């Protein structure tokens, strides 16, 4: 035997919980690329990926178009290969496009910047499973300093 | 009401050579008892010898080390869980504290077993509950919560709950403890009346000699892990056993010693 008041309050409690979950899902979490939309995969081989991680974002002119899905090492030449999941909306990047590992701000996270290349008849469009050939590796601070000192010494 | 030989031929409850121990401590050593159908049988004995344990053995809440406990032809310790639950639907127990559910009022407490075990419509349940409450004189109190009842009333409400499903066997655990003389009288009369009107088999566990003598058809006296005497009121009063006499008359010292077993007092005091 439970009273109407108890039923009402329990209903209210559950509704409040659902409302809060909706609030968290819609207002707090990133709603765009959460892996639910249609994507296609591209691959890119780097010499050094620096601090790039799985789920790092891929941006074109600052707009997020996808995320890094997987990073592994090519066992033949021991170079890291990144598997990229690109939003299916953006499906006509030419194969002359270049990819570089950039850093947001001085201390920020590393992300991939995609620079779309030129288009003419000889150039194909990147599709599922293609490799982006033109890649620039991450800047490694120690190497930079080393190069700087070396060039100083040459003068 | 008298008990004759035929009552013992088809007893309702029978304990055969039951031994029960708790850890190292033996509570019952090869005890046998017979509870005739439709009679009030009392179990008496000093406090702390596990009279309540006996009721729990009959109810299947505890299992004996050995021996048979037969209730209405079924051997309780050997029943499956399901069989035990259906056997319990025909028995009922009135607890020392009443054990009313504190979060429900008196009406819902009495209705509880009916709602749990039947699919009767609410209006029939209402009639049944009010009749049971009328029988214990608490119809007017059906809206009260258990904490608003006096001790005697709580025990009567609990009694109404234990007879809600018309059991065949009812066990009373110390029904007279802590009652004032008036509620004691009421309870004695209720137990007697319920027994005759519903033809119940009643087992009363108590150490209130006077009240028990007033209602019981047959009595067992337990002490020191075994039955020390049994019989009708007259048989017991005429008994020559000093143990029985000590218990019935409430003597301080006798075969059951006043002192807890101890080394002699001079020896104990010298050690300090």
């Amino acid at each position: 035997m439970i009273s109407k008041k108890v039923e009402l309050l329990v209903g209210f409690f559950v509704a409040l919980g659902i409302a809060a979950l909706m609030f968290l899902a819609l207002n707090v979490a990133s709603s765009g690329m959460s892996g639910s939309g249609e994507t296609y995969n591209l691959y890119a081989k780097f010499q050094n990926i620096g601090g790039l991680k799985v789920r790092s974002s891929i941006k074109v002119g600052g707009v997020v178009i996808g995320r890094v899905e997987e990073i592994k090492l090519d066992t033949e030449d021991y170079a890291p290969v990144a598997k990229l999941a690109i939003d299916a909306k953006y499906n006509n990047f030419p194969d002359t496009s270049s990819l570089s590992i950039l850093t947001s701000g001085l201390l920020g996270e590393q992300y991939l910047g995609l620079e779309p290349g030129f288009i003419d008849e000889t150039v194909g469009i990147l599709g599922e499973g293609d490799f982006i050939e033109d890649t620039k590796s991450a800047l490694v601070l120690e190497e930079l300093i080393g190069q700087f000192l070396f060039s100083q010494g040459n003068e | 009401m008298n008990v004759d030989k035929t009552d013992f031929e088809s007893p309702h409850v029978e304990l055969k050579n039951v031994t029960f121990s708790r850890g190292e401590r033996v509570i019952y050593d090869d005890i046998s008892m017979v509870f005739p159908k439709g009679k009030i049988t009392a179990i008496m004995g000093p406090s702390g010898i596990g009279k309540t344990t006996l009721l729990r053995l009959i109810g299947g809440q505890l299992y004996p080390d050995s021996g048979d406990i037969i209730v209405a032809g079924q051997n309780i310790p050997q029943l499956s869980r399901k069989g035990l639950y259906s056997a319990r639907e025909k028995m009922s127990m009135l607890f020392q504290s009443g054990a009313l559910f504190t979060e429900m009022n008196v009406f819902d407490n009495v209705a509880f077993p009916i709602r749990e075990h039947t699919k009767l419509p609410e209006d029939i349940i209402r009639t049944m509950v009010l009749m049971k409450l009328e029988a214990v004189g608490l119809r007017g109190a059906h809206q009260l919560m258990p904490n608003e009842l006096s001790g005697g009333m709580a025990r009567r409400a609990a009694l109404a709950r234990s007879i809600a499903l018309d059991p065949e066997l009812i066990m009373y655990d110390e029904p007279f403890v802590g009652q004032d003389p008036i509620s004691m009288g009421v309870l004695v009369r209720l137990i007697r009346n319920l027994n005759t009107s519903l033809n119940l088999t009643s087992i009363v566990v108590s150490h209130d000699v006077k009240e028990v003598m007033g209602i019981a058809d047959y009595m067992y006296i337990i002490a020191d892990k075994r039955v020390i005497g049994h019989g009708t009121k007259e048989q017991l009063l005429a008994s020559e056993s000093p143990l029985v006499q000590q218990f019935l008359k409430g003597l301080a010292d006798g075969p059951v010693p006043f002192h807890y077993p101890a080394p002699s007092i001079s020896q104990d005091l010298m050690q300090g």
Partner: protein
Amino acid sequence: MDWIQNLGRNTIERFTAIGRATFMLIGAIVAKPNLVKGFPLFVQQVYVIGVLSLVIIVVSGLFIGMVLALQGYTVLVDYGAEDSLGQMVSLSLLRELGPVVTALLFAGRAGSALTAEIGLMKATEQLTSLEMMAVDPLRRVVAPRFWAGVFSMPILAILFSSVGLLGGHLVGVEWLGVDHGSFWSIMQASVQFEGDILNGIIKSFVFAIVVTWIAIFRGYDAIPTSEGISQATTQTVVQSSLAVLGLDFVLTALMFGG
């Protein structure tokens, strides 16, 4: 040699207690549920366990969110990174403080009440009398309370985090003047639904099972005297708090460590 014997006895006691608790839980949740009779009992317990804990959860959530924003701001402003306040507050709440503080408050508020209630039912012979009425106390008393606890705590944790965020917004944006837009957009860019929100809910679900289980078992297993019940209530709070903090480490390592 005494301490070895003590160690042995304690170990045996611990393990038999875990065994009894497991049997109790299995008896309660494996038993065939009776939806018609069971559901109203469940709703009643959600009221007692969940709804009545709402006030303490909401108020604590609000204050914790406010304190996080205040503390975070003073650190972040030194690096000129106060725009990331939203990210800091939301991630701390969703991943850690929401589930953990909710579980600790729940253990103190609802867990101790559950232990005391069941312990008292045992002491006043209500559980025995249920058994004698051929009603299984595991199904009638333990099961609805267990499910209600497991159901309520994740909801409470979600509410705690949401209210905490609002508290953080109140202090960070309204009071300390962090930009409203960047507060929310940086938060949105860094919080992921599966990674953070869902994992937080899973954590809270695990805590719910453990805390409710401990609370009910301590009551069910209590020595039926007033002393025994007060001891059992204390044990509920101590053991479930320790269990929550320990499990939190394990879960965090599994979820966010790799």
